[in-house]
């Protein structure tokens, strides 16, 4: 029974959220209490599956799962003479495991939070059905080893995300944001599909490992590369293409926003996967490294400078999301730029990539927590305008502490996790180019300045009569937020544990293109 469950974990990772979501309209008819129980049960089962799978990958190496075959590890066709991968496969290496842990953490927090936060809203059956569809899509994106399958999950994530953004109609603003997100996602997906078509037409394969082993880097492949990296950079909100993030993150319900951050990071994962595992050795490393670095620096700087003048608290956080994504692009770009230089890679390249990957999960927890606290404040006060809010520290002390933890972590203040990953980024980037490290530090200082302002505007000051009825939010919301806060504090105090157990294997997996191919093709 035990081995049976473990061998099928990758399938359950996507099947369980789908099952939970699709049964929601039926179970919802039994009343809100039963539905909430079902939502929590589904979230717990999904989280357990994700954690078990990630632990298995980190302990015993990459996991493959072949759908519809005779057995789960049959990666090649039955005929040994013409052995090539034909079926849809999941391939989860340590990098995938990192992303799965990231998604699991957010799932757990967001599900517990939304059960209480959305309790008084209508249309909840479909809301949760879409939410579980979004979760299944993100898990699929980070677990799949098939390029077309990646596109399918990208579409699932985009459509479910767009529908959720527009779910609470707020005088048409939410609908506009949802439409914008749907339109841009469709455009991105179309470009990705064209690239997949180009690659499939030339190499007769859709499996990422098989494609990587056959790639010739013809001019058409270069077109496909552009068509893959530009949409994925747009989906993760890098700066020249960041214009959708403020609208979408602001108008979506807060629990959805916290999870949309994760879905953006799944696109970031796709971007890294394409650059390192699919094209890898073919690329001119300096060119593409600097491409990521420039995207990263632009995102970091423009994001934070746009955030400072914002009046809407969630819009401000959305611009900070753009800014923090810049750190990951910058750090991984530095690693990519020195990929050909073994001594530089060992000296600071690996550390840069490790910092970038560590910042993914750290940023997701901080930003998720910030969006959730913003949602808690909106739930109790009904406004997101910083000029009208104030003095909430008297009535909402726990939310205030949680906000403080998240804000200090994202600004890179010890002893929180943002400090650990940002320090790794500063140190390694300084070896590459001191100027870039200085820009990164300035951005961090501006982030701190901006959050000091927000903190003061939200929580400080004497009691106000208009907020006399404001109370602390319900306990499930606090528990959901505490899940993320606990990770922030633990990873901030014991970063070494996470770096050696989780991040270092992920860096090795990202750099080991031959290993990624051999997992499927068996060293052919």
């Amino acid at each position, binding site marked *: 029974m035990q081995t*049976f469950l473990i061998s*099928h974990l990758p*399938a359950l990772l996507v*099947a369980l959220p*789908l*099952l939970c979501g*699709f*049964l929601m*309209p*039926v179970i919802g008819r039994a009343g809100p209490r039963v539905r909430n129980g079902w939502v929590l049960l589904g979230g717990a089962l999904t989280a357990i599956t994700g954690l078990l799978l990630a632990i298995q990958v980190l302990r015993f190496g990459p996991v493959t*799962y*072949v*759908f*519809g*075959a*005779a*057995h*789960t590890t049959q990666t090649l066709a039955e005929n040994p003479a013409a052995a090539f991968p034909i079926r849809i496969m999941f391939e989860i290496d340590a990098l995938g495991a990192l992303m799965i842990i990231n998604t699991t953490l957010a799932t757990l927090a967001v599900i517990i939070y939304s059960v209480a936060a959305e309790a008084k809203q209508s249309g909840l059956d479909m809301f949760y059905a879409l939410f579980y569809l979004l979760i299944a899509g993100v898990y699929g994106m980070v677990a799949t080893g098939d390029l077309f399958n990646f596109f399918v999950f990208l579409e699932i994530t985009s459509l479910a995300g767009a529908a959720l953004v527009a779910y609470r109609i707020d005088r048409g603003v939410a609908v506009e944001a949802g439409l914008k997100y749907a339109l841009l996602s469709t455009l991105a997906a179309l470009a990705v599909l064209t690239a997949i078509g180009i690659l499939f037409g030339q190499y007769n394969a859709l499996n990422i490992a098989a494609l990587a082993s056959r790639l010739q880097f013809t001019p058409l492949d270069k077109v496909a590369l552009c068509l893959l990296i530009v949409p994925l950079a747009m989906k993760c909100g890098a700066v020249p293409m960041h214009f959708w993030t403020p609208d979408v993150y602001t108008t979506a319900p807060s629990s959805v926003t916290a999870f949309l951050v994760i879905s953006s990071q799944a696109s970031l994962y796709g971007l890294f996967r394409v650059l390192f595992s699919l094209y890898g050795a073919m690329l001119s490393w300096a060119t593409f490294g600097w491409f990521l670095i420039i995207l990263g620096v632009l995102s970091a700087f423009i994001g934070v400078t746009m955030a400072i003048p914002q009046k809407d608290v969630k819009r401000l956080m959305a611009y900070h999301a753009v800014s923090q994504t810049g750190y990951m692009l910058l750090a991984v770009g530095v690693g990519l730029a020195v990929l050909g230089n073994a001594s530089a890679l060992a000296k600071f390249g690996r550390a840069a990539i490790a910092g970038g990957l560590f910042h993914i999960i750290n940023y997701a927890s901080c930003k998720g927590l910030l969006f959730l606290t913003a949602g808690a404040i909106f739930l109790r006060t009904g406004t997101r305008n910083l000029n009208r809010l104030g003095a909430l520290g008297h009535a909402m002390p726990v939310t205030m502490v949680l906000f403080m933890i998240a804000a200090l972590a994202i600004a890179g203040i010890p002893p929180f996790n943002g400090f650990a990953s940002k320090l790794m980024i500063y140190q390694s980037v300084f070896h590459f180019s001191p100027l870039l490290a200085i820009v990164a530090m300035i951005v961090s200082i501006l982030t701190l300045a901006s959050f000091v302002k927000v903190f003061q505007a939200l929580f400080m000051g004497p009691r106000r009569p208009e907020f006399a009825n404001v109370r602390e939010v319900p306990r499930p919301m606090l528990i959901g937020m505490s899940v993320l806060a606990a990770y922030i504090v633990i990873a901030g105090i014991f970063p070494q544990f996470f770096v050696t157990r989780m991040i270092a294997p992920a860096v090795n997996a990202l750099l080991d293109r031959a290993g990624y191919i051999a997992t499927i093709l068996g060293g052919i």
Partner: protein
Amino acid sequence: MKMTKIVRTTADAFYPFCLVFGLYVVTHGHLTPGGGFQGGAVMATGTALLIVSRSYREITGRLRQTMLKLCEAFGLMLFLLAGLQSLANARPFLGNWLTQTGGFVGSVVSYGPNPGSLDTGGLVPLLNVGVGLEVFGGLTLIILCMLSGIKEDRP
């Protein structure tokens, strides 16, 4: 918004044919071009004919949203449970555990030209039925929801 008697009668006459043709496309999904999605879309086209030829209030008496939602959920559940049942039969998710086992969908196909045996394919016809139900329910629901936004004519 009510169409003329000619339109309504024609829609009524077409409706059963659309459903039967849709069901044909769904059940022959593993033999002929088409399949669950296409067949479900054909069936939904039949109900769309009924819907556009009548008023919203009149049509919701015959087609209830709850029924369609359940239809959609049931189709999806059929697909997922058929996939999960593979695990119980010592195969990966969606592994074809029904093929060549005899019985309702598990006949062995003889080599050479054949007229197309419906009782083959194993899991595939079941998945087609699931997808067909889901698409039928979902598309009809979308059309109904769009129609509910149209203003009714005052009699």
